C-alpha cells in the first residue's frame, strides 16, 4: 500500500481517466507505427512495399472513382460472404443442438465433423469447382463448409455442458421438449454459440478471398489479384483494409449481441 502512495506521489501524474489513457496510448502507438511504415515505404523499392500515404491515396481513389469498381467488387464479395456465413451459422446451430441432445446424431455425425473440421478448406475448392462450376453457388458452398464446423462443435459442446441443474427444474415444471430447447438449452448455450460464430466469421472471410483468388477473378479477392499481377503494390492494400474493416464491423456487432445476452449471466 505505502509503495503505491509513494510512487504515485513522487511521479505526480495528473490523474487521467482510464478511457483517456486508453485513447492516448492507442493514438500515440498508431502515429508511431504509421510513421515507421511511411519511412520504410519511402526507403524501399516500391515494387515490394508502399508508404502509407500512397495506400491512403489509392484507397480514397478507389472509393471516389467509379471506374475502380470498388463498390462492385465489395458487393460481389458480400454476395458470397453473407449468405455463406448466415447459412453456416443457422445450420451449424441446428446441427450442433441436434448432436448435443441426441446420442444417435452425435455418434453418426461426430467422425465426419471431426474430419472435415480439420481438413484445410483450400483443398475443397478444386473439388467443388469440379462439381458446381466456378459461379457464386460453389463459392457459397465452400464458405459454408469453412464456417460451419466451429459453429457445430461449439454449439454441441455448449449443449452437452448444460447441467441438470438447468434442465431439471424445467422438467419438473412440465416443460415440453420444444420448450426445453427454446427456453433453457438455447439461452444457456448462447455464449458458446456466439463464440463459435465468431470463429466461423474469420474462416468465412479467408475462404471468400481464397475462392475469389483461386477461381474467378471477382470481388475484393479479384481486385487483389489484379493489383498484384500488375505490380501495383499500394493498391494491393486497398482490399486488405476494406476486409479488415468489414471483419471488425461484424465482430463488433457480434460482441454487442454477446454483451446484451451474456451480461445477464452475471459471469
Amino acid at each position: 500500500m505505502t509503495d503505491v502512495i509513494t510512487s504515485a506521489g513522487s511521479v505526480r501524474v495528473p490523474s487521467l481517466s482510464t478511457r483517456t489513457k486508453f485513447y492516448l496510448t492507442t493514438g500515440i502507438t498508431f502515429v508511431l507505427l504509421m510513421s515507421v511504415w511511411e519511412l520504410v515505404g519511402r526507403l524501399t523499392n516500391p515494387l515490394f512495399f508502399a508508404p502509407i500515404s500512397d495506400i491512403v491515396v489509392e484507397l480514397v481513389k478507389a472509393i471516389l472513382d467509379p471506374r475502380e469498381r470498388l463498390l462492385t467488387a465489395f458487393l460481389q464479395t458480400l454476395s458470397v460472404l453473407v449468405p455463406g456465413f448466415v447459412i453456416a451459422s443457422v445450420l451449424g446451430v441446428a446441427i450442433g443442438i441436434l448432436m448435443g441432445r441426441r446420442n444417435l446424431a452425435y455418434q453418426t455425425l461426430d467422425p465426419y465433423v471431426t474430419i472435415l473440421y480439420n481438413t484445410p478448406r483450400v483443398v475443397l475448392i478444386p473439388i467443388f469447382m469440379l462439381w458446381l462450376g466456378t459461379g457464386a453457388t460453389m463459392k457459397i458452398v465452400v464458405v459454408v463448409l469453412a464456417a460451419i464446423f466451429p459453429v457445430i462443435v461449439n454449439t454441441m459442446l455448449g449443449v452437452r455442458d448444460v447441467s441438470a441443474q438447468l434442465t431439471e427444474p424445467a422438467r419438473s415444471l412440465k416443460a415440453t421438449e420444444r420448450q426445453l430447447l427454446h427456453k433453457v438449452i438455447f439461452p444457456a448455450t448462447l455464449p458458446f454459440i456466439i463464440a463459435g460464430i465468431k470463429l466461423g466469421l474469420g474462416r468465412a472471410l479467408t475462404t471468400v478471398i481464397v475462392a475469389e483468388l483461386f477461381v474467378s477473378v471477382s470481388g475484393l479477392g479479384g481486385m487483389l489479384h489484379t493489383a498484384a499481377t500488375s505490380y501495383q503494390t499500394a493498391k494491393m492494400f486497398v482490399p486488405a483494409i476494406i476486409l479488415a474493416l468489414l471483419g471488425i464491423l461484424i465482430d463488433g456487432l457480434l460482441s454487442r449481441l454477446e454483451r446484451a445476452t451474456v451480461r445477464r449471466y452475471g459471469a
Partner: protein
Amino acid sequence: MTAVPVPRLQIENIGKTFFKTVRDKTIAVPVLAHVSFSVDPGSFVSVIGPSGCGKSTLLRIIDGLIHADEGKVLVDGRLVTEPGVDRAVVFQYFGLYPWRDVLGNVAFGLELQNVPKQARTARALDKIRLVGLEGFEHHYPHELSGGMRQRVGFARALALDPDIILMDEPFSAVDEQTRELLQHELLELWAKTGKTIIFVTHSIDEAVYMSDRIIVLSARPGRIIETIDVELPRPRDDRTRAMPEFGRIRTGAWEILKKGIRTATEGQVVA
C-alpha cells in the same frame, strides 16, 4: 370435503436401483428399498437419513422426475407417472435461470403452462410479495443473496398453486442465520397456504423444529427405520427449541439415525 380419508400422498413399496459403470463393470447400487408411507393433506413431513440414503431420489420419484423400479406413488389416489402441476419442487441448488429476472423466474412455470402474460405476471407478483421480495422483481439471480434466491425458488413453486411442495434440502446452501430465518418464514407461509410439504433435510434439528412427522431412512439402500411424530405446539418459534420436549425428540431421532448409519451397501457388480 366429506369423510372419505384419502391421503394427499401415498408412497407404496418404492424401490430404486441405480447402475453405474466403473472400469467397464456395471455396478448395481440399490438406493431405496420398500419405502411406504402416507401423508395427510396440509401436513409437514420431513425425511432424514445419512447422505446417500436416497432421500433426494425419493423426492424426485414423488415429483415424477425419476421413475421407481418398484412400487408406486399416488397423489389424491391418482398414480404419478410424470411431473405434474399438483406438485412442485424447491431445489437445494435453487434451480433459477440466470438470464431471467426474479419475475421471469417466478412466472416460468406459468409460462410453460401457456398462462397468458398478464395473468402470469399478476400471479407471479403476488407470490413475490408473499415471500417478501417486493422491489426485487427485476433483479437477476446473481444480484441476490442465497436466502433471497431460495425465496425466489419458493415463490416459483407456489406460483402454480400445487397441493404438494417437495423441498430438497432447501436451506443447506445458505448461512446459519439466514437458515433459521427461512425456517421461520416457511412455517408461517405453510400455515397461511395450507400446502402439504415434504421436506428432505440432513439436519435433525431442522426436521424436529419444522415437522409434524419425521421419516428416518437407513443408510443405502434407504428403508424406513422409524417414523417419529413430533407433537410440539404450533406456532413454533425460538422458544420451541428451548423446550425439554424438543431436546428429547432430537436425541431420540439421533439415536435412531445412528443405528441406520452403520453399514451402507456398496453395491454389487452385475456385469
